[in-house]
Every structure is written in C-alpha cells, then in structure tokens.
C-alpha cells in the first residue's frame, strides 16, 4: 500500500515536469532506479507505458488546436517503427546488462546540453518573452 502511494506521487511529479515542457520520462527513470528496487529495463518499460494515457489526452488537445501536421507524422512514424523494433530488441538482448550505464551517459550528455544551451522562447511563455 505504501508503495502505491510512492508510485502515485512519483507519477504526479513526473506529470508536473512534463506538463511544464521539461520532459518527465528522463527524470522518472533515474528516480525509479535509484529509489526503488525496480531494474533499469523495468523502469524504461514503466515509463513508456505510463505515458500512453497522458499522450492520448495531449494529442486530443493538440488536434483540437490543429497543432499536428499529419504529413510529417506518416513518414516519421514509418521510420520510427523500424527504429523502435531494433532499439527495443537490442535493449532486451545484448545491451540488457549495460542499460543503466547507457542511460547514465545519455542523462549526463543531455543534462550538460540543456544546462548550457539556451532554448528559444516558447509561445505563451511570458517570462521568457519579456526578458
């Protein structure tokens, strides 16, 4: 029961971070691995799975505001299907023992990038626009 509460709270924190546009998954995975007994592969699976309902709602909202360009979606998804089959099979196969290290390297590189590279202002983000 205690664990359920922990997962609910972790999910909420992740949701807030991704709602702010800062990407929740890359924070959720290390939180699960470092603070619970969940393995790296399981943490990645949980993150992929838990984003499904969140992204369905977000897609519906974006569809209403006509923010989705379907001519891009078709071709990119075609490539992505092959990529995800290959990536997942490597993750579940030869890379399984090294997944945490691979993810750690990815986190550090992305963290350094996000720390030093200033993003363009976001639409509707008043603080950034008024600087």
């Amino acid at each position, binding site marked *: 029961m205690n664990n359920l509460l922990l997962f609910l709270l972790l999910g909420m924190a992740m949701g807030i971070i991704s709602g702010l546009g800062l990407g929740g998954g890359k924070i959720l995975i290390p939180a699960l691995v470092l603070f619970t007994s969940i393995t790296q592969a399981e943490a990645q699976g949980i993150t992929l799975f838990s984003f499904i309902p969140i992204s369905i709602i977000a897609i519906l909202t974006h569809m209403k505001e006509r923010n989705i360009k379907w001519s891009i979606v078709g071709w990119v998804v075609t490539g*992505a299907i092959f990529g995800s089959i290959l990536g997942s099979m490597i993750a579940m196969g030869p890379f399984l023992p090294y997944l945490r290290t691979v993810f750690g390297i990815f986190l550090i590189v992305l963290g350094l990038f996000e720390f030093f590279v200033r993003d363009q202002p976001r639409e509707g983000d008043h603080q950034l626009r008024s600087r």
Partner: protein
Amino acid sequence: MRWFSLIERTKKLGIGFATGFINGLIGVGGTLLVPSLIHFLRTERRIAHGTSLAIILPTSLISIFIYGKNGAMKYEIGIWIAIGGLVGGYLGARWLKRIPIIWLKRFFALLMIIAGTRMIYHS
C-alpha cells in the same frame, strides 16, 4: 521538385528511425524529437510539440510490446504512475505561465547530470 520531396521524405524516415531507436533503447524519445523537427524540417515549435506526440504514441506501443514479450513490463506500477501523471500533467500545464522555466530547466539539467553519474557508478 521531385528530388526535393524525396530528400524531405528521407529526412523524415531518418528522424523517425533515430527517434524509434532511442525510444526502444532507453525508454524516452520525445526529448530529441521536438528539436529535430524544428531544426531539420523547419517546423514551427507549436506544431513540433503536437506532431511529436502523435509520433511517439505508436512508437512507444511497439517498444512496450517488445518489452512485454521479454518480461520487462510491470503494468500495475505503470498504471499507478499514469494516474499520478495525469493529475500532475494537468497541474504542470496550468503552472506553465507562472513559473520562470529557464531556471527550472537548469535545475533539472543539474539533477540529470548528478543522477546520470550515480547510475554509472552504482553497482
């Protein structure tokens, strides 16, 4: 004109392949998709956000299927996190206009560097 559309199509397939590969390998993927849509396909930021979601959803379903077949899916935990995530996502989107994102972004970047280091040196 035909060559141009062929190049565009190849770019889209390439971006898709890289996105899918990262999505399957490390379980996240949207992070790099939004900037590459903006940079390589000259997509407007607002459109890139919406479009990336429509791309990540089917991609994640395939990754989930393969993870599940290999016994790496803990569906119950995923459901609880998703419920928390729905509530949190709503709150985050509402707070978006009131929080100075740039400092928060740097804070999380620092957190990622620390967490990444711990993950590598954690046995």
